[in-house]
């Protein structure tokens, strides 16, 4: 189960950040913030490597003792970061990819919502 999910805009400020255990939220915010550096490193590495296949999914960014952090970048440079509990080793790469795909679909739907101004915080009543 994902423990924390964050959507970060092109200018590196968070559009949406939500964690499941409501206590100790600051720790997750800090982890997401530090993972942004790793994301930027991967993006610039992709730019220089001239690889033919440039994927949107970035993979495991860095593991800590309790959690693993995964990243994903869209074509509009919006980053999705997901923090997952390490104790659940049954989570395969495919499942993480499908979680990111669903997240990307929901983000696209938000962009198409005429009442949403790009750049605002994403709010949901549920």
């Amino acid at each position, binding site marked *: 189960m994902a423990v924390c999910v964050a959507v970060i805009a092109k200018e590196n400020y968070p559009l949406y950040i939500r964690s499941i255990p409501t206590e100790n939220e600051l720790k997750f915010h800090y982890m997401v913030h530090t993972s942004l550096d790793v994301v930027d490193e991967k993006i610039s590495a992709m730019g220089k490597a001239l690889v033919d296949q440039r994927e949107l999914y970035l993979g495991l960014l860095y593991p800590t003792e309790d959690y693993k952090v995964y990243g994903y970048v869209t074509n509009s440079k919006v980053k999705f970061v997901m923090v997952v509990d390490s104790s659940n080793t049954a989570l395969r790469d495919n499942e993480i990819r499908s979680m990111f795909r669903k997240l990307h679909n929901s983000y696209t739907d938000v962009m198409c919502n*005429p009442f949403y101004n790009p750049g605002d915080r994403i709010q949901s009543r549920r």
Partner: protein
Amino acid sequence: MADPALFEFLHTEMVAELWAQDPDPGPGGQKTSLLVLEGMGFRVGQALGERLPRETLTFREELDILKFLCKDLWVAVFHKQMDSLRTNHQVQAPLRLPGTLLCPQGTYVLQDNSFPLLVRMASGLQYLEEAPKFLAFTCGLLRGTLSTLGVKSLVTASVAALPACKFQVVIQKL
């Protein structure tokens, strides 16, 4: 399917509505209406820029983004591809100070020989003055899509003879 017709009718109504309130506005009023149309196109372009390149891989350079505009965006909105894409890079010096670098401004000219929103009107020089109203939304569309993909630009349109029109995209490099 009736899809292309739906968008064309909606667009015609949008233009008609904005001009119906003041059938012969002075230059100031006309500019506001054009800005409103362009703004609408911009927002739609931002959403399309998010939705269309979903499964495509990351764009490697500017030309890839422009090619995407000509092929995928045009096909999605107008059900045909853009007829030609030309580059016209100019080197412009902003200030004449010693030691400044000349910043190159990428200019691309996208040409469509039978633009669907103009094809229904006339074929030739009739209605040449009315044409800009029908192009403002599309200019905004291009600018919005480019801005989501990370490119700041300025888009202008010109018509020599209906229904062929040219969109000039000037990319502003900071």
